[in-house]
């Protein structure tokens, strides 16, 4: 998903008898559905895993602006351009909500941004694919945001308060993203033969990367089991993927488009769609930095950060000078954590 293969640093999930008294008390609060807040005691691995997961999620939102930003100047009408601009601005906002949530755990904003541009931090595999045509903007909203919603709605109930609250805000805005994407696909599917072919081509290229977004099966993963015990992961990757497929295939049918999977078939006994094999080699290659656009995405982010340096410096200098002028005795304000 937006945070993939999150490492908990644990080698196995421990039972209550192996936990310290503090850890036991913490786990029983989680089991009782109590939310953990920034200043509450928490085990270090819980804190580290959350920082990793939330910062990856934030990076995905921020990098996710790039493939779509690519089409803002080339949107086919003023209306589509205004909508896309609003959508991309939302993604930036989602990144900000999430960076703030990570900061409540003691992470530094600058450190997280450094980790991203230096290539030390992961972000979702999906944003390393190119947006070749306008139909790709439709496919991203429909499929990528659609897959994201399925992952994010359960996270509104996760155990860490600031993360859960950020997800509530994000989910409220996400539905617009998915619908505007489907609306683009509808217009193309109902258009000329060339437009419909463009929509089909976008579906052909985005379907499998979207199906991979939830990550490989994690039924046997220690990290996944640990994250579930901590209630920062609610459903398994396979469960989320199945839900995505089951709800998306009928939407493709309505568009009159064909899902590019010859093995796709409704399984009456299971009450779900069966799908063909997923090419996980491709997923791992993209995650390791070898997708079609990984280098380009990081280069663009690093360039934007460097280009903004003079603005950050000027704003800081202006703030320092006006504060000094207003109250010569006042110490300079410094960055601090949320109480």
């Amino acid at each position, binding site marked *: 998903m937006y945070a993939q293969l999150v490492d908990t640093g644990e080698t196995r999930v421990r039972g209550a008898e192996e936990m310290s008294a503090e850890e036991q008390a913490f786990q029983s609060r989680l089991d009782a559905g109590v939310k953990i807040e920034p200043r509450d005691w928490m085990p270090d691995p819980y804190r580290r895993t959350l920082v990793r997961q939330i910062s990856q999620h934030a990076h995905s939102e921020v990098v996710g602006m790039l493939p779509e930003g690519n089409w803002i100047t080339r949107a086919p009408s003023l209306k589509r351009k205004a909508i896309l601009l609003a959508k991309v601005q939302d993604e930036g906002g989602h990144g900000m*909500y999430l960076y703030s949530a990570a900061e409540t755990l003691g992470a530094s904003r600058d450190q997280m941004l450094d980790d991203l541009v230096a290539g030390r931090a992961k972000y979702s595999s999906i944003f390393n694919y190119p947006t070749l045509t306008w139909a790709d903007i439709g496919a991203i909203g429909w499929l990528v945001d659609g897959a994201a919603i399925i992952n994010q709605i359960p996270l509104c109930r996760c155990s860490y308060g600031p993360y859960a609250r950020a997800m509530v*805000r994000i989910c409220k805005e996400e539905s617009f993203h998915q619908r505007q994407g489907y609306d683009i696909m509808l217009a193309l599917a109902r258009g000329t033969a060339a437009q419909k072919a463009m929509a089909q081509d976008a579906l052909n290229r985005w379907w499998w990367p979207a199906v991979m977004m939830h990550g490989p099966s994690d039924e046997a993963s220690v990290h996944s089991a640990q994250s579930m015990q901590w209630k920062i992961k609610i459903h398994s990757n396979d469960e989320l993927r199945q839900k995505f497929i089951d709800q998306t295939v009928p939407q493709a049918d309505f568009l009159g488009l064909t899902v590019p999977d010859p093995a796709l078939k409704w399984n009456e006994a299971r009450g779900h769609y069966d799908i063909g094999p997923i090419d996980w080699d491709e997923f791992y290659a993209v995650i390791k930095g070898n997708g079609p656009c990984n280098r380009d995405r990081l280069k663009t982010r690093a360039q934007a950060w460097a280009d903004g340096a003079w603005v950050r410096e000027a704003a800081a200098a202006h*703030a320092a000078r006006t504060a000094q002028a207003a109250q010569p005795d006042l110490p300079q*304000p410094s*960055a601090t*954590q*949320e*109480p």
Partner: protein
Amino acid sequence: MPEWPLWEVFIRSQHGLAHKHVGSLHASDAAMAMQAARNLYTRRAEGVSIWVVETGRIHASSPDDKEILFEPANDKPYRHPTFFPMPDGVKNL
């Protein structure tokens, strides 16, 4: 260069409710914090008034003081009207 300070954002919606904490952001000064809060937290008409407060200026209670601060309320149930059963037949009370 040090990070810009952190600010907490509070929004009052148009339904007559009090300002409510909605999140935080980094800004170099109050004017930028106000502008960023408007862009970040009111894109869908969520409010008609914004407060921004530098995070370091907020004094918060500690989770360790929860018992000392809030437990005493639990042994004063008579502060709730339901503590006093009213006989049937007594009206408007």
